[in-house]
């Protein structure tokens, strides 16, 4: 199909889609006039039932905990997929290390930049822990904390070079940490089954509302998710950097 015929097809089907969508959307309740009952139920119950003030996280890690377990394994599988796709196959020509641009990779950054990077990294790590540990109280939680913590380690890559980043994020260790993070969530979910309770039943004391050690399982699951997401992002970054440095040479 040529580009012109593709565009023509898009124009036709896009118009039809837009017409149908407009018909559907105009029959929805007006914006700001939402009538679904579940949001109200959970908003009213989460603080009493789970002692969690951030309702969104109460839903994610408790009321919809089973879905989040699935979501976490989507993350896990996708990272495994990235690593499998970019693995070295035997007998392929790869870029030689001397040419791979250790020279290109060498930073020309000034001392000032490298000196500011360390405090920036420490601040980011502290911020990541803060976001992760307060997930049940304020906006935040495991997923967000994981991304922040992983980006803290990218400061090393920015200030130094790929070599330093790869030395610091030992591949095996990160892989183990990722698996532990994913497995811990599954175990927390499965453990209540041994006592004849439903999956993901809250086992920990709920604590005082507004306290950092409150809301039982939510805080714990959020922490395991944080560990998993940090490791997952580091693994993806590691794999891509490995690809840039010693990637395969494309066949001409």
């Amino acid at each position, binding site marked *: 199909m040529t580009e012109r015929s*593709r565009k023509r097809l898009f124009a036709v089907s896009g118009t039809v889609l*837009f017409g149908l969508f407009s018909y559907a959307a105009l029959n929805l309740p007006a914006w700001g006039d939402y009538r*679904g009952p579940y949001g109200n139920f959970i908003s009213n119950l989460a*603080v009493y039932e789970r002692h969690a003030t951030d309702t969104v996280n109460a*839903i994610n890690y408790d009321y919809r905990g089973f879905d989040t377990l699935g979501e976490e394994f*989507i993350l896990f599988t996708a*990272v495994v997929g990235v690593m499998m*796709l970019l693995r070295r196959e035997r007998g392929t020509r790869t870029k030689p290390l001397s040419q791979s641009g250790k020279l290109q990779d060498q930073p020309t950054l000034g001392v000032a930049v490298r000196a500011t990077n360390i405090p920036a990294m420490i601040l980011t790590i502290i911020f990541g822990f803060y976001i992760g540990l307060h997930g049940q109280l304020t906006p935040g939680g495991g997923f967000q904390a994981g991304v922040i913590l992983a980006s803290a380690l990218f400061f090393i890559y920015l200030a130094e070079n790929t070599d330093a980043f790869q030395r610091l994020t030992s591949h095996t260790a990160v892989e183990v940490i990722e698996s532990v993070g994913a497995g811990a969530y599954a175990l927390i979910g499965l453990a209540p089954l041994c006592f004849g309770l439903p999956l993901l039943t809250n086992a920990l004391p709920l604590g005082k509302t507004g306290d950092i050690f409150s809301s039982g399982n939510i805080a714990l699951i959020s922490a395991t998710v944080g560990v998993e997401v940090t490791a997952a992002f580091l693994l993806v970054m590691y794999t891509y950097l490995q690809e840039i440095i010693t990637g395969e040479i494309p066949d001409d």
Partner: protein
Amino acid sequence: MHQLFQHLPYFVAAWLFCCGLYGLITSRDLVHSVMCLAVLQSSTYVLLLAIGFRKGGAAPIFADWLSPGQLTVDPVVQALMLTDVVVEAVVVALLLAMVVKAHEKAGCTSPDDLRTMRQ
């Protein structure tokens, strides 16, 4: 017209969706395609947040100034959106890895050239 403005966020979502779709079908580079897919998916964020919004509703974070029972926006769709964001991020990572592999095998990243090479 008044009714259109009452449903404006839904049309913003549809517009974003169509922008992503248009980019996807006219794409000349696989990396560009992946980014278009990300744009296309971001329409679901707008749609989900628009559905859960309530006039005068506060964010569903309870504190001293907001006690349970007061009007909040719907937290369920917000939780769904969080799932959406995470899944999009990893799907983009996976697709980009496929693009790298396609470039290694074919030496190009244009969808049209990839097709002619197979023939």
